[in-house]
């Protein structure tokens, strides 16, 4: 494969590109969905192809094709150059490109059982049985899904990189939906839309769906008759998976250097962060320590090299509440004057690599969830995301959760439905005053992060444990 890649790269360079890199991917996926004890979807797919990019002046040119013939590879390199060259009609300053070590290496995701070698019958049965149990227990619509990805990726650059990686990802989840009079209520496990990690079939087995079906079915029905979440300003305690999404939306996207530089302005938006405030801006309370770590074993965004050949690394993002780092690639890092962070990835062979969150997580604190609840006089504990929305500067957000519990005088006393909270990013994080410890720290994964044009779906990780936020506006309703 490296020989094929170098044919395309040589073609781009000989055409006039100042730099070129290319990837060939063999991407396999298996997707299973079940509803009410029956399979709703079972699909396997495989795609093979090449994506090559060329840097000319101020623009990247990118071309992708399924055709790996020699003739096509030469043509692809030329096209990548010509596409970049056409950008000169509306050109800017020449794009710089930071150096990284040139390596020849290979890597495979550590895993116990390749999910594609596990019988699909076993995987289907797990979902059928789980959803059947919830249906029998009164769920209006029980559903479950499993997704597996096996991606073989060969990467070469005009600087001499030759890297092979085999990334294996597994995930899924189950949920129970109850339909009432003009409303629906849902409970999901391990989190809404499922939980995803790098690894094999063992990831799914560790979820133990069967131990959670009864709780999900009961809670989704109980929510229909539960009182509405109270409105007001009070303490908010977030369960880990909801806090993971809070990190994703209000920290992860805000620290993407391409956003900060305006490259995503029209579509995904920009950021409230400005580079001249790096190492000065207070992002949150002193309990807030965020790192972007692509080396965490088992987390969803773990790999050895990104799609520019930069080694995976651990980058400090927020230290004791002060903003200290960004998510960067070789071009954006060179512009901003920071070290390339190894955070550029593409959604398949047919997409241009772009800055992507790795495992952007909140380091654990010292409390237990029990202690957090015990020390709360008046608040709401919220679990499992149901809706999310944040403005294009990543400042003004509103989240809804599946279930809430009223906490009074240190005790959970009542379940409430339709819990929502809203806030402004630095103020909200500044109000974090208790954070659960490493015993409750989970490598939550988000498999559906949309960004870029053409649209790309990214897989990101967000290690988090539960936390408390003082004086939060809760219970916003339409």
């Amino acid at each position, binding site marked *: 494969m490296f020989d094929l890649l170098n044919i395309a790269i040589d073609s781009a360079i000989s055409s006039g590109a100042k730099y070129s890199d290319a990837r060939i991917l063999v991407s396999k996926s298996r997707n299973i969905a079940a509803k009410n004890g029956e399979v709703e979807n079972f699909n396997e797919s495989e795609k093979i192809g090449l994506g090559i990019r060329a840097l000319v002046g101020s623009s990247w040119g990118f071309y992708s094709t399924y055709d790996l013939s020699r003739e096509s590879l030469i043509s692809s390199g030329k096209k990548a150059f010509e596409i970049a060259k056409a950008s000169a009609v509306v050109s800017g300053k020449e794009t710089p490109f930071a150096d990284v070590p040139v390596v020849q290496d290979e890597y495979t995701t550590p895993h116990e059982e390749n999910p594609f070698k596990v019988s699909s019958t076993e995987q289907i049965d797990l979902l059928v049985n789980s959803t059947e149990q919830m249906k029998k227990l009164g769920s209006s619509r029980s559903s479950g899904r499993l997704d597996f990805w096996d991606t073989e990726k060969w990467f070469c650059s005009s600087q001499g990189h030759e890297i092979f990686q085999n990334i294996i990802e597994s995930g899924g989840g189950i949920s129970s939906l109850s339909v009432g009079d003009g409303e629906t209520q849902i409970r999901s496990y391990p989190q809404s839309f499922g939980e995803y990690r790098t690894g094999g079939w063992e990831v799914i087995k560790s979820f133990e769906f069967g131990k959670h079906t009864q709780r999900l079915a009961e809670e989704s029905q109980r929510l229909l008759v539960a009182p509405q979440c109270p409105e007001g300003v009070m303490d908010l305690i977030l369960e880990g998976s909801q806090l993971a999404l809070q990190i994703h939306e209000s920290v992860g996207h805000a620290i993407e250097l391409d956003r900060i530089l305006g490259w995503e302005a029209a579509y995904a938006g920009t950021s409230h962060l400005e580079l001249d405030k790096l190492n000065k801006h207070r992002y949150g309370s002193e309990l807030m320590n965020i790192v972007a770590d692509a080396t965490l074993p088992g987390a969803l965004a773990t790999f050895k090299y990104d799609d520019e050949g930069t080694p995976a690394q651990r980058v400090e993002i927020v230290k004791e509440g002060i903003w200290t780092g960004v998510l960067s690639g070789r071009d954006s890092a060179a512009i901003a004057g920071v070290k390339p962070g190894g955070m550029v990835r593409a959604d398949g062979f047919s997409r241009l690599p772009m800055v992507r969150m790795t495992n952007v997580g909140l380091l654990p604190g010292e409390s237990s969830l029990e202690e957090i609840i015990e020390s709360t006089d008046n608040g709401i504990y919220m679990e499992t995301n149901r809706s999310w*929305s944040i403005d294009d500067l990543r400042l003004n957000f509103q989240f809804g959760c599946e279930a809430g519990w009223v906490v009074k005088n240190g005790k959970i006393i009542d379940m409430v439905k339709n819990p929502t909270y809203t806030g402004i990013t630095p103020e909200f994080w500044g109000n974090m005053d208790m954070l659960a410890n490493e015993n409750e720290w989970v490598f939550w994964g988000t498999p559906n992060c949309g960004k870029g044009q053409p649209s790309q779906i990214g897989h990101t990780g967000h290690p988090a444990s539960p936390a408390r936020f003082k004086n939060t506006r809760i219970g916003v309703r339409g």
Partner: protein
Amino acid sequence: MNIWKEVLGDLQKQIPNSVECELKMMHSKSALTRFANSHIHQNVDEESADVFLTIHKDGKTISRSKNITGIKSSKEFVKEALDSLDESPKDTTWAGLTSKSESYEGFQELHEANPEERANLVRDFVKEGEDMNAAGYCSTYLNNFFIWNTNGLNSSDTSSSAFIDGIFRTDTSAGSSHRGAVNINNLDASQTGKEAAKLAVDSQNPIDIDPGKYEVILGHEAVSTILVFLSVYGLNAKSKIDGMSPILLNENQFDEKINLIDTPEDSESIGFKIDASGAKKYNLEIIKNGVPSTYFHTRRTSKELNMENTHHEFFGVDDYFGGIGTNLNLDKGNVSHSDMISSVKKGIYINEFWYCRVLDPITQVVTGLNRNGSFLIENGKITKPIGRLRFTQSFIKSLSPGNVISVGDKSRYADSEFGEGMLKVPKLHLKEFNFTGGVSG
């Protein structure tokens, strides 16, 4: 087309007579020229060729897809699927294959636009606001679709489309606009740039206003967002089956000024004239004088609900996602933009919504924000630009009887949170819209 005939023919030969089988092939050339900070920074071009195989036998179904490079041999691809069929579970909602009589021949030899053509449109857009920061894209698509099944259906179609979309930013404001067409030559990038530039200039130094219930005039993109949410979460028959659709057929659920038609047969409509099952699509009334008359159906949903198939099986998502309307046209009215503004005593103009998410599908309560051009209207005039507001509002109720004051007299393709080229809409003047938060939360 020869390569497609060849691949299709090879695969067909491998299909045994004892099974029901559907073979689909999608060949796409898509390109997108992206600009930011007033210059082109990313410029991409893609050619893809994917094959989708579905086999059904003895109540079981197997689906496999590969791109043509992944198919090492036709025999092996089909054999893998047949071997896996025994392991497959029962498929209780199988609704059969489209009949031979639905065959449609729409394939055309079209040529894709080149990067220079896209760059020229970007240049035309950017020059309309040279003192500002421009960002956006110009994209072009050329798709060929072929489908064959063991009922004898042989359908093909070709679609092309092009879009220009962008914003201008100042230190305190932004303005956006969008255009779509079947052919890149029909895009007016200068006009699109002018509209975006004017909104950006006019909305500089916005003021914050208190949240609350306001009369609103919604621009094309904002209207498109409301309709696409209703389409995906409400009119999709799958939502009805799952008990999550708020749509009530044959009831006066919407204001009588709301008339929604699906128009795949119109010459200016973007997209295929057939659905993913290979059946010809037809123009269809969805909501007439505020009364919904049908859901968007696929073969499976029409069987499950015992309703007529409207042929809205969608490309690119699993068929269990349900039906999606792809050529929705909200009838325009007779009220001009200036007449809408002059009729408002106190209200808000919103050009575009941002990051909208459903809180509960059955009530269609959605939260989101405004961006790229929002203004306070007082005593019939736009008086001040306004900053960010968060709304939490049922989209169903926003179009309910009595809440639609007027419908704009101009209609165009508008972008939406679920994609471009699906909706052609006018502006709407609504009596009440619920804003629950301001810039400070």
